[in-house]
């Protein structure tokens, strides 16, 4: 199953989104929150993201769902640092909450990484009203 890593500047946001996404997940599905800094501050940490990606990789790849600005830069840097490892991680250009839930649903029915990314990115067009 595709693993999912949630990257937010806030550890609370990342944890909360992980909890919501887990409601849609299959047993044993790996969704990891990588939010905030080691000291609890607001921000993103490429090393924390890198460790989360390694933990979420079970052989089918990892979808990385990010919030704003430095979350993208830190996630890209994390993936670059993993270039020599046996890890296939991709960043979804998606709204973080809706994207994470859409990704969790597709990953739970064993879709491949490409489809999970498309599902997350399609979430931007979800109408609420």
């Amino acid at each position, binding site marked *: 199953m595709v693993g999912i890593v949630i990257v937010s500047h806030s550890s609370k946001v990342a944890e909360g989104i992980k909890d919501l996404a887990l409601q849609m997940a299959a047993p044993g599905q790996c969704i990891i929150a990588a939010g905030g800094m*080691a000291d609890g501050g607001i*921000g993103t*940490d490429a*090393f924390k993201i890198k460790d989360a990606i390694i933990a979420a990789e079970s052989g089918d790849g990892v979808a990385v769902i990010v919030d*704003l*600005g430095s979350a993208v*830069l830190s996630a890209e840097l994390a993936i670059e640092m993993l270039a020599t490892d046996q890890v296939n991680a991709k960043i979804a250009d998606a709204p973080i909450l809706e994207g994470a839930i859409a990704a969790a649903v597709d990953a739970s029915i064993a879709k491949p990484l490409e489809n999970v990314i498309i599902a997350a990115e399609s979430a931007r067009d979800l109408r609420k009203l």
Partner: protein
Amino acid sequence: MRSLNMAIEALANIIIANKEKLTEIDAAIGDADHGINMARGFEAVRAKVAANTNDDIGAVLKMVGVTLISTVGGASGPLYGTAFMRAALAAQGKKTVDGELAEKMFAAAIAGIKERGKAVRGEKTMLDALEPAYDALTQGLASRKSLAECLEMASSAALAGVEYTKTIIATKGRASYLGERSLGHQDAGATSSYLMLTVLAEIAQNLGREE
């Protein structure tokens, strides 16, 4: 090694001393965290360098880059972190810096920032200070000036770059949400880049005097 540690410490000191100023600048058009983030990062750097016994410039700059990446938190973490790590690659195994190496390290750092930030000059970012500074450095070296003189020229060019950022609209980072309202304000990242260059120029001057 002593002058290497002192140089890194001086970089950390100027950022930490300007924490409030950088945050104020960022508060005007950004998310008011540049000074806080950079100071947090460089406090971690200062603590690590205090215990450093390695005299390989590459190894020490890599330590600086890794520390910034894991402690800054904002976009300047991966940006400056990448810059220091790329400069580290260029300086691997080196124990002294001459003009040629300074030019190589600076070029590598700027290339890293451009790649990571997918940015070019003119978007109201640190590149608006760094690229003119690099141009000034290469011009100085080409006309056979000393490294200290070249870094002084680079630092002046960076200051002009900071002033230039007041005249342009931000298209990258949080300030880009403000559009035209970003006019009249200088960029925080360009300012922190300028501050670091002033320190490098000062260090080169002091070392030149000792010789």
